[in-house]
């Protein structure tokens, strides 16, 4: 295939996966600009390395792995706990603000907001593998088998990571009055 044709074919993949890639990066970083940069960087890497893509696996598990690894590396470089900015006044995303149920009372909204804030903070403090397993299953609907492929581990290990992540998140809500 000629180079132009390759790019056109890849642009189809970009259209198909750009929202999911952005969302994964956003779930990891909780920052719109960083999510945009990281997800675009993942596409550029995938395009450069597309010749190394093993056709036996699906594109999106291969691509998700690139996105997740970039995000984990980014967070490691940033060397601070993601979501810590949620403690600040201006950190809540527009999407999260839009999550409030208009039919609920102000008290219920406040409680729901506090639950989300705590979950966000707890999610940010999870170990990388637990967080990856949880985000891919809970936020992106990947199956255990797919997550195992993305994380290059066994399904049993993914189940353990997922269970521990859920237990830690549930624990973060334990003291909520």
């Amino acid at each position, binding site marked *: 295939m000629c180079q132009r044709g390759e790019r056109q074919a890849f*642009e189809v993949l970009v259209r198909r996966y750009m929202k999911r890639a*952005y969302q994964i990066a*956003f779930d990891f970083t909780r920052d*719109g600009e960083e999510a945009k940069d990281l997800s675009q960087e993942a596409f550029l890497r995938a395009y450069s390395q597309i010749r190394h893509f093993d056709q036996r696996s699906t594109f999106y598990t291969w691509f998700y792995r690139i996105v997740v690894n970039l995000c984990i590396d980014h967070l490691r470089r940033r060397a601070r706990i993601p979501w810590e900015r949620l403690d600040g006044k201006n950190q809540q995303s527009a*999407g999260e603000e839009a999550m409030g149920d208009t039919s609920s009372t102000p008290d219920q909204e406040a409680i729901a907001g506090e639950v989300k804030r705590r979950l966000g903070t707890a999610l940010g403090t999870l170990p990388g593998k637990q967080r990856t397993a949880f985000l891919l299953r809970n936020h992106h609907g990947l199956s255990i088998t797919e997550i195992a492929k993305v994380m290059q581990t066994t399904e049993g290990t993914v189940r353990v990571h997922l269970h521990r992540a859920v237990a830690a998140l549930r624990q973060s809500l334990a003291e909520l009055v």
Partner: protein
Amino acid sequence: MLQHKDSHRSACKSFEEDLVLYYYGDCREPESHRVEEHLKGCASCRHFLEELQTFLPLTAKPKELPQAFWNSYYEELREKLAAIDARESWWKRSFAFFHPWAVPALGTALVLILALSLTLAKGMWHFKGHRAQEEVPSELRAAAGNIDFFESMDLLDSIDFLEALEDKSSANSEFQKL
């Protein structure tokens, strides 16, 4: 809701992991059937599952972004991809020859050229030397080994010349006497 402390009870330890998987629909048979049977008789595990059903969706709400954002995102990415292609095509043009097969081929060609150059150059030198020899007449080359002979011949010529001069001078003196 989750704000009630008494609702935050632990599930049975042996079922907790399976309950998480059950919530996500990842619990296979026969574990799935076992969990369902257990839930019928265990209030703690039912509460645990209800909690998961309440709080886990709260973490998963995707951030809605306007279509304009995605259009701009896509166009920006297309430009970056085009830039990669431009960089790669320059690189490919420059190094197109350096495919894996080209390196040994180039090496072999260089060795051949070097060998041919040396062989031909040596032949030309040899040819030149040969021609230089051939330009000398064969009589001279044959006589080159008898240089002593020619030297002695010169000496004899000189003696003959002196004798002739002596004869000439004695004849002149006799003529003057007369």
